[in-house]
């Protein structure tokens, strides 16, 4: 049993931290590409060079901690799904969530023959993409950006990624396979979101602790007030739990599907709940300043919520865990 990073991964982590310290905004994506991050998310079979659970977890935790967008997940899912289906590489945006439902698929988006009709919302990664990776009730589809019947309405997501609604009207689509046939790729994407969430969680925790240590009221630092101190201690425990849940999933990414899915669901529940808790408690422990956009916490809170929501929130995965259902089917 060994929970240490390998030497390769430690070097990757160091380089990544360096890039994240030097770059942000529009300059970040090219710098990450230069570091080989997109390939690091893909397995050898998919044309990448690592794709191990440990690599995915460490990369996305660093992105989350640094406040970088989680956009690379969308590209990774598309690339891996194409590779698995034996298609040429392309950049695809991931279109999964549907209006009018919590997490069902196939409510607002339906396939008829080789055409799709309906609407997807909160689509991620569309900027510069050649098309969309679209889910229906039980399958994954590729839809080209320029095909007939394809409309895209962009808007920013709450975590500052570009997003949008995808509206398809009898749009030609290529079926890449059953959803359950791509469960490995989707599991890797869930790990990425969860690890990203863990990074945001630690950022929220660290910022809050720092604030409570520095900020004085009634002549004492806030951390000296026992009621606040005990709540910080409880948060520290939940941060460790979230970390262990990410370790569990990354260590079982290649386990047999039923076991992997249990860890996947447990991971998303644990991280999602910790993210919600940290969102609520870090604002409350900060007080008014935590409500402002100007202060660093504002963006962190929105990223916490987004990390819980992405690819099924804690409610969704808890239900599937309790019913012993597969994560994707």
């Amino acid at each position: 049993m060994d929970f240490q990073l390998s030497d390769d991964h430690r070097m990757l982590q160091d380089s990544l931290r360096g890039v994240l310290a030097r770059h942000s905004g529009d300059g970040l994506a090219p710098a990450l590409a230069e570091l080989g991050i997109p390939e690091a998310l893909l397995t050898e079979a998919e044309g990448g060079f690592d794709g191990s659970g440990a690599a995915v977890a460490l990369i996305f935790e660093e992105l989350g901690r640094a406040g970088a967008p989680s956009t690379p997940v969308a590209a990774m899912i598309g690339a891996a799904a194409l590779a698995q289906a034996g298609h040429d590489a392309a950049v695809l945006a991931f279109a999964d969530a549907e209006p009018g439902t919590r997490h069902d698929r196939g409510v607002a988006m339906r396939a008829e023959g080789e055409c799709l009709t309906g609407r997807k919302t909160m689509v991620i990664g569309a900027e510069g993409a050649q098309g969309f990776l679209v889910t229906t009730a039980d399958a994954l589809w590729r839809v080209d950006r320029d095909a007939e019947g394809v409309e895209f309405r962009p808007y920013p997501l709450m975590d500052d990624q570009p997003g949008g609604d995808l509206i398809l009207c009898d749009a030609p689509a290529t079926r890449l396979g059953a959803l359950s046939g791509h469960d490995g790729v989707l599991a890797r994407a869930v790990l990425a979101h969860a690890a990203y969430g863990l990074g945001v969680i630690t950022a929220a925790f660290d910022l809050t602790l720092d604030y409570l240590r520095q900020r004085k009221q009634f002549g004492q630092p806030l951390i000296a007030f026992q009621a606040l101190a005990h709540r910080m201690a409880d948060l520290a425990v939940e941060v460790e739990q979230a970390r262990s849940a990410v370790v569990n999933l990354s260590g079982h990414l290649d386990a047999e599907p039923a076991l992997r899915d249990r860890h996947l669901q447990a991971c998303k529940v644990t991280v999602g709940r910790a993210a919600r808790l940290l969102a609520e408690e870090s604002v409350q422990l900060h007080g008014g300043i935590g409500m402002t956009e100007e202060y660093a916490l504002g963006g962190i809170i929105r990223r916490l919520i987004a990390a819980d929501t992405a690819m099924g929130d804690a409610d969704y995965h808890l239900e599937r865990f309790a019913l012993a259902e597969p994560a994707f089917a």
Partner: protein
Amino acid sequence: MDMSFTPEETAFRDEIRAFLKAELDPALARKVRLHHDLTKAEMEGWHAKLQSRGWLAGNWPKEFGGAGWTAIQRHIFEEESARAHAPRIVPFGIAMLGPVLQKFGSKEQQDHWLPRILNGDDWWCQGYSEPGAGSDLAGLRCEARRDGDHYVVNGQKTWTTLGQHANMIFCLVRTSTEGKKQEGISFLLIDMETPGVTVRPIVLLDGAAEVNEVWFDNVRVPAANLVGTENEGWTYAKYLLTHERTNIAGVGFATAALDNLKRVARAQIHRGKPLSEDPAFAADMASVEIELMAMSTTNLRMLSAAAQGQAPGIESSMLKIKGTQIRQRLDALTRRAYGGQAMALPQGGNEGPEDADEALAATATWLNNRKLSIYGGSNEIQRSIIAGAMAKG
């Protein structure tokens, strides 16, 4: 024991309902329900409609032009207004400054300022909090130095709600640094068009334009604008904080939020059925509804005791805690009901997806209402108040 309204109270409730049905524009109600920022004109228009019925100042005695309602009547009005998604009455003039002037202001101040509040001549905002003070309100440093028949004010206030619309601000200022920190505070009325006053908006994490910072740079304020006695302002501030207690629980707002949640849960599809039929989600909704049913009665019990002359104690602290917990739980459930749809915001520069106002409002409301347990004395402060009273026994 009798839990029913009197016939007069029932008639009063029906009158309010009829008024809301007739006078509240559904488009405006929708904006309120979706927590969108209202324009100044929309808020002033609603005030004027209420004032035309004599209902703007339900809490003021009739001698000052108010409705002179009982606590129960005010409760009914607030609950019905909230359930109908009517705009909230901007509290700074009506609920806060009015009672202070009525109790501590001079005849001249009452004659001048009170009618202007009712007819909308002035939009008041509040200058209490300061950066760096947090829950330690009495530690304020914004100073007013006497200079002839003026005070010269220097310093900064923050969290000034809707200050962007205001032409007047009532402030707590430091007029003395001797003695305990509570003893050198005065209550001053300041015209915001005086040179040296600067207002800067604070953007909140949901993008709402709601609160502001206000700077005072050698602002000259007529000494006639001092309320009561110099250095006695803390007394007035405490009176203000404890005076307006009928709506501290926010029963009406919570009821409106519960109605909205139920509507959302019936509309959202989950595993092929309405989410409202999902046993786990239905149980979560039931839990909050049950909490609200109890709190609503806690609120009435305390109003009823107050109406019978019992001195208010720690009850308002208890209602503040439970009321904000319930509203925040409702907000969280509504956000969760939207699941994967809840990853954008409707405002703050974002153009959300069309037809998705409802889903996006749920997230924005959740974010914005984190303030409920922070402002007006954070829930931590309320717990300390309750525990302090209990420790004495």
